[in-house]
């Protein structure tokens, strides 16, 4: 298992079945039987997927009821989305500096600079 929480969340969501389960849990809580219904897989396989989601902190399962309802931890999912959003914002910050630079450059510029003569390698 990967060490850090972000990697766990990412790899938990790397699987299409688990992503689909998360999407359905975003609508309503469910249980193993309910989650298994649309897929052509065993209950054991669904339980295994649930375990991965649970270890990543994306879902929690109540230990009180017999059917152990599964609940989506929307905040964890939201946190990952925000992580990506921060990365996006950093790229945007860099590219808006590039926007500024482009306005100072002549329009008919060559795509590459003239060869560097005597450049230090």
């Amino acid at each position, binding site marked *: 298992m*990967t060490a*850090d*929480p*972000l*990697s766990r*969340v*990412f*790899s938990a*969501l*790397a*699987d*299409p079945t688990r*992503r689909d389960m998360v999407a359905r849990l975003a609508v309503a809580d469910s249980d193993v039987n309910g989650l298994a219904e649309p897929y052509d897989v065993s209950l054991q396989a669904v339980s295994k997927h649930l375990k991965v989601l649970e270890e990543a*902190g994306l879902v929690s399962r109540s230990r009180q009821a017999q059917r152990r309802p599964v609940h989506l*931890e929307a*905040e*964890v999912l939201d*946190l*990952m*989305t*925000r*992580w*990506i*959003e*921060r*990365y*996006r*914002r*950093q*790229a*945007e*910050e*860099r*590219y808006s*500096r*590039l*926007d*500024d*630079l*482009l306005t100072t*450059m002549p*329009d008919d*510029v*060559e*795509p*590459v*600079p003239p*060869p*560097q003569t005597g*450049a*230090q*390698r």
Partner: protein
Amino acid sequence: MTTTRTRQTMITVDPDVPLVRITREFDAPAAKVFRAHTDPALVTHWIGPRRHEMRLDHYDCRTGGSYRYLMVSNGNEFGFHGSFHEVRPGTLIVQTFTFEGQPDGVALERLVFEDLPDGRTRLTATSLVDSFEARDAFVAGGMEEGVREGYERLDELLAR
């Protein structure tokens, strides 16, 4: 496929392949955007976080060339280097990228420049690494103070 889109920069994190893709459009022709990527006198103006000083060791952007630069922050220097595998003026740059703090790690970067109507350019920058762990560190690593705070918040959430 996790995609976040707002006004301009679009990020794609692929679930099946350890890559991050950034798409961005510019109000300038591809030759100009390309020049800003290849001219050592221009790259220092925009690559790298705002609070850091970027110091070029060398930047020889042509097929078979290489680069190395340092980011200087609070007296600490962080080195980055790579090779330019393919430079096709105005259209394509394929390069490698290594953070010298993790010298065994390398990203393969592919930058595609497309001329759009009205003199605009679409840039698609794809970074491919060799594991999902490395990719996630790549996404998280770009965020400096944010990532520590993020982990703390995730720890708190997971501890509940």
